[in-house]
């Protein structure tokens, strides 16, 4: 579907279920936000399932990513404000689910947008996300090496061998292709703003909405120990740790992530 957000056309996947159907008017409005250099399809294990399980699911392509109009925005604060615009466009408070850079956006949005954010799920993040200089340099140069480095680092050991939950698919191959096909300059910009954002712990301390944190024990891009200051700041959050996941739990352990989302969105 396409949504007009602050005058720009935004593309999103909704699991082929229209979100304006009368029978789901009161269903949770769930927005899924991808990470650096990625797009909506990182949520393909969750979007369609959520849409068929009592929610209105909207997996967005951030501005300048996927099929959304550009340009890409240049700060986590700017992207959080954009989530506020998205909330107005969709007409309701949002349950935000964010991965990596998308998790930072969710944190900042939940800390600053008040009751426009109904709840938050974040995964694949630390209290900070410093970017390896070699990755940033390759991304700055639009060198395919950047996609190769990220695809190699973002998945756990099992996924490096394969055993994709989707029969016949290569997880590292898919991640590499998604990053490779992002518009020139987008990954470099995303990585730079991830590295520059230092507000995660403060945002965590300010968040009052229900929050779930999903962490992969084998995450090498944002190691588990690096998330602890944020987990401590969030205080009230539910913590879900996945023993065989790396940086992308929604792809690596989709069943566990769906289960965590179900518990989070429908706690009773």
């Amino acid at each position, binding site marked *: 579907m396409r949504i007009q957000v602050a005058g720009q056309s935004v593309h999103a996947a909704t699991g082929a279920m229209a979100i304006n159907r009368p029978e789901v008017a009161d269903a949770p409005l769930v927005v899924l936000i991808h990470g650096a250099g990625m797009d909506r399809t990182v949520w393909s294990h969750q979007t369609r399932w959520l849409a068929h399980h009592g929610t209105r699911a909207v997996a967005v392509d951030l501005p300048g990513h996927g099929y959304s109009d550009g340009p890409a925005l240049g700060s986590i604060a700017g992207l959080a404000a954009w989530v506020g615009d998205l909330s107005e466009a969709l007409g309701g408070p949002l349950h935000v689910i964010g991965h990596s850079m998308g998790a930072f956006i969710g944190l900042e949005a939940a800390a600053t947008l008040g009751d426009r954010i109904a709840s938050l799920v974040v995964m694949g993040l630390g209290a900070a996300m410093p970017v390896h200089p070699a990755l940033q340099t390759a991304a700055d140069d639009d060198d395919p090496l950047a996609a190769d480095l990220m695809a190699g680092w973002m998945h756990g050991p099992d996924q490096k061998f*394969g055993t994709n939950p989707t029969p016949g698919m*290569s997880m590292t191959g898919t991640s590499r292709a998604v990053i490779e*096909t992002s518009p020139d300059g987008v990954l470099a910009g995303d990585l730079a703003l991830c590295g520059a954002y230092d507000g995660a712990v403060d945002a965590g301390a300010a968040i009052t909405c229900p929050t779930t944190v999903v962490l992969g024990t084998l995450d090498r891009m944002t190691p588990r120990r690096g998330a602890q200051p944020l987990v401590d700041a969030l205080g009230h959050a539910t913590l879900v740790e996945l023993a065989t996941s790396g940086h992308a739990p929604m792809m690596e352990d989709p069943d566990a992530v769906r289960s965590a989302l179900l518990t989070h969105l429908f706690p009773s």
Partner: protein
Amino acid sequence: MVEPDHHRFDTRALHAGQRPDPVTGSRAVPIHQTTSYVFDSVDHAAGLFNLEVSGHLYSRISNPTVAVLEERIASLEGGVGAVCTSSGQAALHLAMATILNAGDHVVASRNIYGGSHNMLNLTMPRFGITTTFVDPRDPGAFDAAIRPETRLVFAETLGNPGIEVLDVTAVAEVAHAHSLPLAVDSTFATPYLMRPIDHGADIVIHSVTKFLGGHGVAIGGVVVDGGRFDWASSGKFPTLSEPYDGYHGITFTEEFGTTALSMRARAEGLRDFGGCMSPANAFYLLQGVETLPVRMARHVDNTHRVIEMLDAHDAVSWISHPAHPSHPDHELAARLYPKGAGAILSFGVHGGREAGRRFIEAVELASHLANVGDAKTLVIHPGSTTHQQMSAEDLASAGIGEELIRLSVGLEDPDDICADLSRALRASQKA
């Protein structure tokens, strides 16, 4: 310099797609000889049938043993995924059926396997899909043949039987300039010798029966999805970019993005046409893939020895292999195929059809049969076998003379291969 943290090719040939079985500890890939899989719940079943969740539901659509082979080949080719089929021809059909509709047009190399030529030239027109055949050595010919209704460019990376070397990068650029995908049959090359996706191809097809399997014991095919072609923006592929009633209005590009092609090929193509690979065949073929790097290196070494012998033999009128300096694509092959341009070659025997017949009947070690890419050395006379359905005009157009012998060089001791061929060549000259 920081290196990407991926296992290298030879390691992936052995391990990609599999971890030891968590229940039994089985190190080898188990043969999951089952038609179907028990659902966790009604909701789980509904989710599988509606593409909400991933997993196996029926072995026509996916199977754990077959999935290991698919993921392994996808990894070796650098694709996003793969779908295995009952044969290489089923793979070509699956790729076309997934993206083409009646009224669509294909531009294809004229120097392709006879069975593929038949499918494109004779069979697909019955379903409203037509093909224009062009010289694979001329990227401009592909460009000139593209029409408004063209939806696919197709060629073999190493042509059959002349081993024409496709300039994958140049032809991919032609296709992409028209917002069209390039599909290649890379059976003769295998990913060990050349990875077409790295050079711009969008779909890679194999007869896994051949070098990937390598032992001549099982038939199979595969479609590898490169994942880089923008099916939605081209506006030409409604099966991928428009809602599909078969799964409650799903739009494959919207939901799956880079994997749209392989998801639809499996969800529709295997579901409806049913050209799936059996788990037993997947197991046999996996045994071959595990040794692909060492086998292909030996195939190529033996081929170079055979070329040297043929080059010096009085009964041989010509040799067609990119390693031979006389081959028109010798320099291109050196660039695209630094490890060698495969183990299939053709040559002419002085004396025409009769001499060719005598040669075939005189070989003792090499086997006369309709296959290539076996561990054993194979010979055939295409004009009377694999390409017999082609008219004399089409044969000539494809560069197949009556004296042509196609040779698939095996893994025997190269001295024995050369001795057998040399003896048969001498016999071919005795009227």
